[in-house]
């Protein structure tokens, strides 16, 4: 009986290996198969002792070859490991890593989103003579071992909303959060809320979550992973992957396939390799803090030893996060230090007791540490062509602004206000006295005048007939825009796409793209316009001062052939990255603008764009300027930069969160197609988002939705008015009125710390 079990186990292991390595020919696998077959044919004739002995040998062989195979794993094999139904799941972790837990926020299929699992769990242990109970909030995607209703760990927006809700609960209860990322990516549905909208909200809230947060990544698919992984300590399972996009998705984009077409498996494997998605790669780039070693060929449900390792690591990580902000740490941090540990023997975190309660000051500190941690990431993934001297000057300049702002807005303004208030009081007094004293005199005067109609002053009369002063021209000077699109120079007619339904007549291109600013005069359909149009027609003339222009997009992963493509984009657009940051004025109000420019590789965000954005936010914060993110268009995160791009989601969001918390005004304006990562993070988190009528806003484009969910979406699925009804954006603007509306927004929205408030 026992033997049968062991045989079955070996058979399972073999079929698992076959699953992982796919169709690849491998001598080791063949050998295992041959040995197992041989054993099965010979077993009948053997005595029990022989059988056992052979079995043990066979098992040793399996172990040996598994280790050997482990070393041969390609990134694509790792992808297959994390997707295998035998892979350990969050439920298994809850059972085996924690001592007691209660699932909250739904049970099995009876949940608002069964793919997001929340549990209140306890870690109970004995340290010395004390028994300590430490509660944590466990959040993570549950793939279930093949359970259909789990949707493969692909979380819907309301699942992420649920996660956020319980993070807030943990914050209230002041207990640490452990999150486990087991997701191929978020479910790209636009509902109430939309996928991007909810992830952005999650990121924004997590940026200021005042409890220790440790996350573990097994399968980290882009936005879905970020939604619960913005943490103080990011661990990664050694056989997991963490990537900007699934290798299949990347390959589909690379091959430019149309819907329904299949991509060659070789290309998928190549993409998986080039995207640097493995734990080791991510550790090297610094996007995870530590890698937890798994058993050969990845941890499966029955690897009980691994749960112990995981538990140990989780306790240790939580302890470390807490100790870095705790006032009274004494020797305990030393006890956890790897350097002091005896060689070859890992520190047993179970033996170290660190209280997981944090004072409110420590909690502030924790958030600040988290900001710093993310701020430092991805610093080598972009090209900075500034000289050393320029860099130093840049540093000082930032400091100078901060000091200047402090004096002007904190120090001086306080006194100014006091004086002003006093002045007002005095004026009111004088007015009162004058009114009282003058009343009888006026009464007498009125009597003499005797109800004569009010006379009109000469001055008022001339105002009726003389030319008055008027210097309002806006972006339109003498009926002409400052900048005219090159499209307005062709003599051709353009048919509005709504012509059939709205009866629009054909428009003459010079009218449409010139005076009408690309808006159909009959139905108001917005044709897309170049980013230069906004640059020159929205902002005050000659007020644009670009900064950080020397930060350039590069090819941090050494992605094959990408250097040429970036160089080509630079040549074609004359830009250095897809993000243009500049200071400008509208109606004489200073503001900092970060513009995502669609012609540069689709306006995708990579390390350079993220860094420029973060610096623009910091500049706006230091100078107390409002900040406008002008999204001319963005296709998402630049996949060829891999996790260097993904990490910009939390990085930029944190910068924005800090800016908003400091009382700034963060305004986002979408213009054309705005999709994926950026919308699901630093753009989508703004409380003031608007769109030009030409915008499409969403998480994934129609093609990707069809590909991943199999659902056909209606053509207006991503249109601006849908985003408006989902509450993602706050308003839709006519392009010709962008300037007017931005001015209005600058005057009426945002925090109290702006320089002109």
């Amino acid at each position: 009986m026992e033997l049968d079990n062991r045989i079955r186990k070996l058979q399972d292991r073999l079929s698992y290996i076959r699953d992982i390595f796919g169709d690849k020919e491998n001598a080791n696998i063949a050998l295992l198969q041959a040995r197992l077959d041989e054993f099965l044919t010979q077993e009948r004739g053997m005595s029990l002792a022989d059988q056992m002995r052979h079995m043990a040998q066979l098992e040793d062989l399996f172990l040996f070859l598994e280790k050997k195979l482990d070393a041969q794993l390609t990134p694509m094999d790792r992808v297959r490991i994390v997707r295998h139904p035998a892979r350990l799941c969050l439920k298994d972790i809850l059972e085996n890593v924690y001592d007691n837990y209660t699932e909250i926020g739904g049970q099995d299929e009876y949940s608002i989103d069964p793919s997001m699992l929340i549990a209140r769990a306890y870690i109970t242990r004995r340290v010395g003579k004390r028994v300590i109970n430490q509660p944590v909030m466990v959040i993570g995607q549950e793939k279930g071992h093949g359970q259909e209703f789990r949707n493969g760990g692909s979380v819907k927006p309301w699942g992420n909303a649920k996660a956020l809700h319980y993070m807030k609960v943990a914050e209230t209860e002041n207990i640490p959060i452990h999150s486990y990322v087991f997701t191929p990516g978020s479910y790209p549905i636009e509902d109430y809320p939309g996928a991007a909208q909810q992830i952005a909200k999650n990121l924004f809230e997590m940026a200021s979550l005042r409890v220790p947060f440790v996350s573990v990544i097994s399968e980290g698919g882009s936005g879905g992973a970020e939604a619960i992984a913005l943490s103080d300590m990011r661990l990664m399972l050694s056989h997991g992957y963490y990537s900007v996009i699934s290798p299949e998705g990347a390959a589909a984009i690379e091959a430019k396939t149309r819907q329904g077409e299949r991509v060659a498996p070789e290309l998928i494997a190549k993409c998986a390799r080039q995207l640097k998605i493995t734990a080791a790669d991510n550790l090297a780039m610094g996007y995870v803090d530590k890698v937890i070693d798994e058993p050969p060929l990845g941890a499966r449900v029955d690897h009980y030893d691994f749960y112990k390792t995981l538990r140990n690591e989780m306790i240790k990580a939580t302890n470390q996060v807490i100790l870095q902000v705790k006032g009274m740490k004494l020797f305990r941090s030393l006890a956890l230090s790897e350097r002091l540990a005896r060689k070859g023997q890992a520190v047993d975190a179970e033996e170290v007791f660190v209280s997981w309660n944090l004072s409110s000051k420590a909690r502030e500190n924790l958030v600040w540490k988290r900001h710093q941690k993310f701020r430092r990431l991805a610093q080598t993934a972009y090209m900075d062509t500034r000289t050393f001297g320029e860099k130093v000057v840049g540093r000082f300049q930032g400091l100078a602004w901060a000091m200047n702002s402090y004096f002007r807005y904190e120090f001086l303004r306080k006194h100014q206000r006091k004086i002003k208030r006093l002045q007002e009081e005095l004026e009111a007094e004088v007015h009162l006295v004058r009114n009282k004293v003058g009343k009888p005199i006026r009464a007498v005067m009125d009597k003499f005048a005797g109800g004569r109609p009010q006379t009109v002053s000469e001055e008022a009369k001339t105002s009726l007939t003389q030319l008055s002063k008027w210097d309002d021209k806006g972006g339109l000077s003498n009926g002409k825009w400052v900048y005219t699109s090159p499209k307005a120079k062709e003599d051709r007619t353009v048919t509005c796409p709504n012509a059939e339904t709205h009866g629009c007549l054909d428009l003459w291109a010079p009218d449409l793209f010139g005076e009408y600013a690309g808006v159909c005069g009959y139905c108001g359909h917005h044709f897309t316009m170049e980013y230069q149009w906004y640059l020159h027609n929205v902002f005050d003339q000659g007020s644009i001062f670009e900064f950080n222009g020397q930060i350039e997009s590069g090819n941090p992963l050494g992605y094959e052939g990408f250097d040429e493509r970036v160089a080509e984009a630079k040549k074609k657009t004359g830009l250095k990255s897809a993000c243009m940051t500049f200071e400008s004025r509208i109606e004489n109000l200073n503001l900092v603008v970060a513009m995502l420019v669609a012609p540069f590789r689709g306006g995708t965000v990579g390390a350079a764009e993220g860094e420029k954005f973060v610096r623009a936010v910091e500049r706006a914060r230091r100078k107390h300027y409002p900040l406008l993110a002008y999204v001319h268009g963005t296709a998402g995160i630049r996949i060829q930069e891999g996790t260097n791009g993904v990490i910009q989601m939390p990085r930029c969001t944190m910068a924005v969160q800090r800016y908003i918390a400091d009382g700034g005004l963060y305004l986002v304006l979408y213009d054309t197609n705005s999709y994926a990562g950026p919308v699901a993070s630093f753009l989508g988190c703004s409380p003031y988002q608007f769109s030009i009528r030409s915008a499409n806003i969403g998480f994934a484009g129609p093609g990707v939705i069809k590909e991943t969910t199999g659902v056909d979406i209606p053509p207006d699925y991503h249109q601006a008015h849908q985003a408006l009804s989902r509450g993602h954006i706050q308003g839709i603007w006519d392009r010709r009125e962008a300037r007017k509306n931005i001015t209005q927004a600058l005057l009426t929205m945002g925090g109290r710390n702006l320089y002109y408030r």
Partner: protein
Amino acid sequence: MSAAHKVLVANRGEIAIRIINACRKLGLGFVAVHTREDMHSGHVRHARTHGGDGAVYRVSSYHDANELMAVADASGATAIHPGYGFFAEDFRFARRVVKRDRPLIWIGPSWGVIRELGDKINTKRLARRLGVPTVPGSDRPIYDEMEAEELAQSLFAFQADQGFERHLVLLKASAGGGGMGIEEVERMDTFRSTYRRLRNYAKRQFQDSGVLIEQRIFDFNHLEVQILGNRRGDAHVHFGTRNCTIQSTGRQKRVEVAPGFAPGELTYGFDAGKVLDDIVEYSLRIAKEVGYNSVGTWEWIVTPKGDPFLMEVNTRIQVENGISGAISKINDEGPVDLIKEQVRCALGEELGYSQDDVSFDGLSIEYRIIAEDPSNRFTPWVGRIDRFAWEEQPWLSVLTHVPTDEPYDIPTEFDPNLALAIVKGKDLAEVKARGVAFLDSLVLAGEDRAGQSLKSNVAFLREKTANILEF
């Protein structure tokens, strides 16, 4: 002038006929267009008679610029005359005509001029800059409540001063249009609440809270000055004034008289001769400033006290240009065909005469004969005209696209204007008598689908003839 020029007549009805005639006088080719509904209109017949089948094209709409351009290209037209209405004052169309890859000559003021004078605020500011009187009121959007109140107060005072019976201040959302965002205020007491309501409405509706503070004058005479400029816009002559005070309830002109007043024969409460001279001088001042380079009409309001105010400039040939031509002579030759002069100048010819060569003689009245019911708020009548005839006279010219020898169905798509009758006389008494004589001789009968007989404004016109030019 090269005979190679071919004019696309982008209009219908009597103006199309007049343009075709002007082209024929100048020896130019022409192309007429018509819609399906207008198939039997007189202008199509006229074009076919004088230009053959090749001179007539069918379009789906007179409003479709693309189709007109296609017709111009297909027919080899080199110039385009918009007539009045449709594209006549559309600067975008005018711009497209001259800026396209195959440019055409635009017979009308250049697009820059149309744009400049098409914007009423701009015209008002231009006039004020040149010291030309305009209707008292704001010449820019007002954003400040105190300022708005002050303006309104002065306007009420002005109206009291002029002795108007009804006082009315108009508030208009400056970004509005098409009758949206206009409020009337009769008393200062209600001004503030109305102003705020309109301002908030404008802010919501047009994202701009600017309000224009203007007034409505009820008791006034409507005068016009006819101006012609050469292609370069540096030589201008005027062809006298017109009085268009007799209008329907919807403020549509019904009877026009040239000249604007008759100071020799009637007495006015002010110096009418000086008013006429003034408005001509003011109009020319603006024309010179903007370099006006075609025919145009400056519209004036004259109050009972004799104060003229510029209302607007119509940058096109007008319906009533015939009466100005009728009383004018160039080098003692008359009448003057203003459309011919316009086409001639547009093609680059010099005027060839100065103001001193233009003389005026007698009076002229134009009647607009329209199938409508003056007793019922001038409601249009639509049906079939069976008989349409009048007595020909040497002092009379009738411009019509309605055939006189066969029944004609009035198309419902356009305004039911049937004919223009221009009567000429040497003095007021004669021209009035001839006008009445013409109207009496006019036979106009028809029936609509319901069997009702035709309704026209002939009686209304006759009644109004009695006291024309009196004020």
